[in-house]
């Protein structure tokens, strides 16, 4: 039997104005981060509603990270302040239901922080790899 090497699938929601540009910069600077990170661009971090996070897990993500502008720098002034409360409460609830807390993260990455973007992703992928496959919040029908 052939054993497939385990590679985590990571979904990264990145806000258009900072973090997505930060990811771009990481690319331009030829910094390495795993290809297992799939970026979804959103207009602002506060565009991400809790259902997006759950859906990502449902469709097979092993970890979900949400990146936005640093507090104070949101291009819609206050979007990321709402994100901060919403995600804090959602992640705490997921933890309460017994879902590993290392699978979720919020990180603020500016357009100038290409290196931070790459480092964050490397670190997150490593943390999720250590946990293995997401079994607790999965939908068997969506398994590849």
């Amino acid at each position, binding site marked *: 039997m052939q054993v497939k090497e385990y590679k985590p699938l990571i979904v990264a929601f990145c806000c258009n104005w900072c973090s997505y540009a930060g990811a771009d910069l990481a690319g331009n600077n030829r910094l390495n981060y795993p290809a297992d990170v799939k970026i979804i661009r959103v207009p602002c971090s506060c565009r991400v509603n*809790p*259902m997006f996070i*759950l859906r990502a*897990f*449902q469709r097979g993500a092993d970890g979900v990270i949400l990146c936005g502008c640093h*507090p*104070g720098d949101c291009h819609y002034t*206050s979007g990321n*302040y*709402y994100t*901060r*409360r*919403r*995600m*804090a*409460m*959602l*992640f*705490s*609830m*997921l*933890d*309460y*239901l*017994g*879902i*590993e*807390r290392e699978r*979720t*993260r*919020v990180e603020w990455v500016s357009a100038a922080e290409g290196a931070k973007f790459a480092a964050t992703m490397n670190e997150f992928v490593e943390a999720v790899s250590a946990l293995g496959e997401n079994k*607790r*919040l*999965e*939908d*068997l*029908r969506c398994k590849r």
Partner: protein
Amino acid sequence: MQKITREQLLDRAVALLSDGTVNSVLGWQKGEFDYDVTPHIFKSADELKEGFVWNDFCYANFSKYLVLKTDRIEGKLLVFLKPCDTYSFNQLLTEHRFDREKVYAIGVGCEGMVDVNKLKAAVDGISSIEATEEGLKVTTIYDDEPTVVAIENVLLERCVNCKSKKHVAYDELMGEEGEIIDSARFDEVAALEAMTADERFAFWQNELSKCIRCNACRDACPACTCENCVFNNPNSGVETKAPVTSFEEQMFHIIRAYHVAGRCTDCGECSRVCPQNIPLHLLNRKFIKDINECYGDYQAGEEVGMRAPLVDYTLEDLEPGEVLNRRGEDA
């Protein structure tokens, strides 16, 4: 046994109906059995005299009924509110969900309501129930000798952990002004938080897998008043119960609790109506507890016009990671 009597409430309702202050009365009516008291709109004094009840089974929270009813009725509606119901009343007013001008609210003092499931577990084959000073005198179909059940042993969970005997809204109060109680309602949440992730996961899998997706918890909730609920959308994937995977149960319950986070008054209706006895209050109270700990004490519905914590922020809020790890890495 309730301190206020049925007659006191009835007389007041009849008086308000006859002097034209109100046009109809939203009150409790006896159901098929003594324990299934149901909400009813009474239109006349005669109807009231015949059907109106007030006893230890008046658990229904009327606040949500106002959302649709005040739109449809002529004139004013008289509504009876227990202390916990008044929080929902204020919260709905904050959200502009009914017209205050069309409602005349009487606050009714409450001694706690009975959990029918607990009573049925204590006594089999109930045929009639009478409230006495010693407790509920229950007659069964098997036996002529009534059993007396102390009300403290069969109270609803929300009454055992009652958070307030104080009415926060009314036009007129019957009974004494109560007080806010320092209840132990977060103890169970704290106990769960102290478990390992594996134990919590097992606990919730066990509870959530009982859900039959009847939507009763949503329908009874005075914070869930959207006309088009996300869960009515066929694309939500949870429109009906899917037996294939536990994901849908988790999603339904996370999102249901999340949508009322910061607005849930902890009225306890969801847990009361659940036919599967899922402890939904443990989900709601987790959000309340987190909000209290991270953003300052907040009781939804305490006053009209308060800003719910999840539509608010401060510049110094904790980061999600800090919230998760605030009790140490593992706990």
